[in-house]
């Protein structure tokens, strides 16, 4: 009998053991405060040139700095590692004067050699580094590499970088570009230590089953920049730990430690804040904002909107939407204010144009289209599509986007308001991925469809340039005047002239009506009230340099 007990004990132990041994697995800085901040996931890796996601950038933006940056909480371009810059009359040569007395975290000096090393590193990437999964932002801004190994890449924007003394560089471009300077705020173009990049194999990587993977240790254990925080450790699934850079050239961080931890669900992040396990968390759900505000020890930090939800108006052969009066009737027939008030939990703002108000080029003079069903009917009756004007209207299912939390309800409200405005709406839906987005992109998602955009960087070209700079199957229209002004604006290097061009372009777009924007939505950070000085940046990041925990 004793044997049986031993044997049954063995079963339990064995079950536990198989779990433990399968596949042979198993294998402060001071009295300054520590801030624990929760994001939604781990970073991908910590070489910003090779990532494009916000979770990675949140960390790399604290460690590394670019030549320019956006003033915290705004989209205004400011000097950072460059103190000033100038461009040639043809817009192809850019001279940057560099900040003196700056050191990388490994003790090496930041100077012109480091700037050219970084630019040349991006330009010379080859093989797997040219994969879309590796260098999304480089390809988006610079088009191509010194030698394009992958078909479909365009000619490179970058031509050369030359040192002019220790603290001055001259960068030559192959063509004029107005987006070159603003795009330097993207963390992908932050300056990294040449010594650390070389020492820890930052340029070693390969494609595995279609996905780029760095094989050196730099991107996982040795990210090295000039920023206010230094990398200390990264435990996947648990935390990234940064410590104060005591040798920082500017205003030093008030925190001793900054810990960024992944908590995958919004409820999990909220409860961790309520329980004091984190001091702050990002991407608070709009419906949780009231709960946070209702807690006397917590507060909400609002991030200005940097996105737009809109209704595509698809034009094409035989489409009723080719008639401007029909497009205007659509604009007047969409009860956008009601949708924003009802389905955005107080986080939405009515959009009257395709770029958010925080961006330069936003115009207060665009044509507005307040809900007016009678005017819509009048327009229809004087158009080629009389009441009831039949339209196919598509919306996505199985998705919630920051700019469109509840697409089905948005659609239902729009359907009702359009039908009250003289339209006969036939609804269509499809799952967001892979069907819906593909249909919108190739112009087969009806006359109208719901879609939107979250910006990548603080430049209007990233919004209206992406949509309307050239013909796209999604919108299906040909309007050389709009194409030309947006191309001209994208190439213009004078900030003042660019802003004027984008304002004019926005006014033209809203008269021509290739679509109807309807919402910009805020995002939120939940924080303890004792957290001070932390700033939410519109492009999605968080500014920790001045943060402290009281």
């Amino acid at each position, binding site marked *: *009998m004793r044997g049986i007990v031993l044997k049954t004990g063995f079963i339990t132990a064995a079950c*536990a053991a*198989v779990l433990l041994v399968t596949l042979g697995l198993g294998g402060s800085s001071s009295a300054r405060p520590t801030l624990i901040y929760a994001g939604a996931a781990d970073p991908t890796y910590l070489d910003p040139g090779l990532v494009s996601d916000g979770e990675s950038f949140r960390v790399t933006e604290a460690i590394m700095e670019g030549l320019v940056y956006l003033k915290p909480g705004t989209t205004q371009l400011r000097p950072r590692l460059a103190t000033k810059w100038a461009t040639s009359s043809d817009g192809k040569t850019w001279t940057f004067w560099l900040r003196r007395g700056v050191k990388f975290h490994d003790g090496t000096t930041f100077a012109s050699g480091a700037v050219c090393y970084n630019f040349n590193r991006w330009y010379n990437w080859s093989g797997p580094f040219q994969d879309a999964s590796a260098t999304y932002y480089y390809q988006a801004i610079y088009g191509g590499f010194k030698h394009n190994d992958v078909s479909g890449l365009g000619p490179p924007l970058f031509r050369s970088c030359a040192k002019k003394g220790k603290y001055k560089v001259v960068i030559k471009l192959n063509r004029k570009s107005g987006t070159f300077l603003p795009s330097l705020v993207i963390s992908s173009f932050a300056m990294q230590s040449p010594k650390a990049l070389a020492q820890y194999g930052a340029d070693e990587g390969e494609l595995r089953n279609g*996905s780029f*993977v760095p094989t050196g240790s730099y991107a996982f254990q040795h990210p090295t920049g000039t920023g206010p925080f230094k990398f200390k450790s990264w435990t996947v699934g648990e935390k990234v730990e940064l410590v104060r850079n005591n040798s920082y050239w500017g205003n030093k961080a008030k925190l001793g430690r900054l810990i960024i931890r*992944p908590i995958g669900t919004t409820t*999990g992040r909220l409860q*961790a804040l309520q329980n004091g396990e984190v001091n702050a968390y990002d991407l608070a759900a709009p419906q949780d904002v009231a709960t946070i505000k209702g807690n006397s020890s917590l507060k909400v930090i609002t991030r200005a909107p940097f996105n737009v939800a809109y209704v595509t108006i698809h034009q094409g052969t035989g489409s009723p939407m080719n008639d401007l009066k029909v497009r205007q009737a659509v604009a007047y027939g969409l009860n956008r204010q009601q949708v924003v008030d009802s389905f955005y939990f107080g986080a939405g703002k009515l959009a009257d144009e395709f770029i958010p108000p925080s961006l330069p080029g936003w115009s207060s003079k665009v044509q507005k289209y307040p809900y007016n069903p009678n005017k819509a009917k009048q327009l229809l009756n004087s158009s080629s599509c009389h009441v009831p004007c039949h339209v196919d209207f598509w919306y996505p299912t199985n998705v919630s986007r920051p700019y469109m939390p509840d697409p089905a309800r948005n659609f239902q409200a729009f359907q009702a308001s359009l039908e009250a405005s003289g339209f006969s709406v036939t609804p269509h839906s499809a799952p967001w*991925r892979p069907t819906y987005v593909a249909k919108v992109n190739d112009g087969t998602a009806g006359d109208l469809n719901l879609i939107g955009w979250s910006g990548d960087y603080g430049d209007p070209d990233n919004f209206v340039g992406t949509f309307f700079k050239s013909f796209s199957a999604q919108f299906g229209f040909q309007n050389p005047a709009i194409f030309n002004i947006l191309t001209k604006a994208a190439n213009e290097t004078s900030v003042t002239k660019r802003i004027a061009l984008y304002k004019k372009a926005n006014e033209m777009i809203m008269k021509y009506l290739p679509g109807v924007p309807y919402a910009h939505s805020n995002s939120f950070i939940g924080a303890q009230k004792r957290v001070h000085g932390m700033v939410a940046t519109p492009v999605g990041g968080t500014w920790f340099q001045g943060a402290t925990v009281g």
Partner: protein
Amino acid sequence: MLRYVVRRLLLVVPILLGLSILVFVWVRALPGSPISSLLGERATPALVAQYRERYGYNEPVYKQYVKQLRSWSRADFGTSIATHREVKDEIKQRFPATAELTVAALIFAVAIGVPLGFFAAKKHGRLFDHASLFISLIGVSIPVFFLAIILKYIFAVRLGWLPTVGRIDVLIETKHPTNFYVLDAIITGDWHALWDVLKHLILPAVALGSIPLAIVTRITRAAVLDVQNEDYVRTARAKGLPPLTVDRRHVLRNALLPISTIIGLQAGLLLSGAVLTETVFAFPGLGSWLRDAIFNRDYPVIQGGILFVAFLFVMVNLIVDISYAIINPRIRYS
């Protein structure tokens, strides 16, 4: 005995092959494709076509399967689309968390369930028996994720006794030589870390162990009721042995046979239950990882993760079968 073990081991091969076919077919039956998932929503049709060609998605399905099987047989599950890390490495990183949680849930279920079932049988038909039945029904009926949310709200958010997320307080600096945090804390003698790790395990383990607890309780009760009316138990009592000795030596030991079987099966089932529990508690194990992969359509992770969990399940069951044969020789000849 050896022949039985060899036969059972050989049976694992077709089971795993069948599983690999199921997973392969299932992933390809999902809307979209791994390529569109890999490239994201901004990919052009030309780029998608280029990738399809480059990674062999235009080849016949059986060729794709053979190629995939070769990779899997080398424990090469590919690279995560979302994290760009090797699936194998992610499994190594996350498996210890799930293993610890599963073992903790199992300990909870056995430590509470066996005594509860035993005493329910001893108090057959009385209030205690009815109460244990009621508790078991509740345990089986409440969805794990709901219980997890309730437990978290009461004991963490409202009372503040226990943490809501993770495996260890992020402010604790301790070494993790094996990634099994309980074991690590013991090895390094860091008792503060050990206490914190255990605190992080309590709520997820209770939530995850609630269903096995109910099942173990009911099985124990039934087994004890069966055994205590056996001749040898009556004989032992008639010989004048003290009741406690009879219960310990004759009743409980014999009742453990079916209990041990059910414990083995529950250990496998807990792995799948961990998906919900780990998600609610942001516990960085295989479960929350798989859940994220499903939402992100991270096909290599879905494939690799499911195969790994299925492999574990098969191995646990294999061990249960072999152990049962050791305990009960009749099994070998049937």
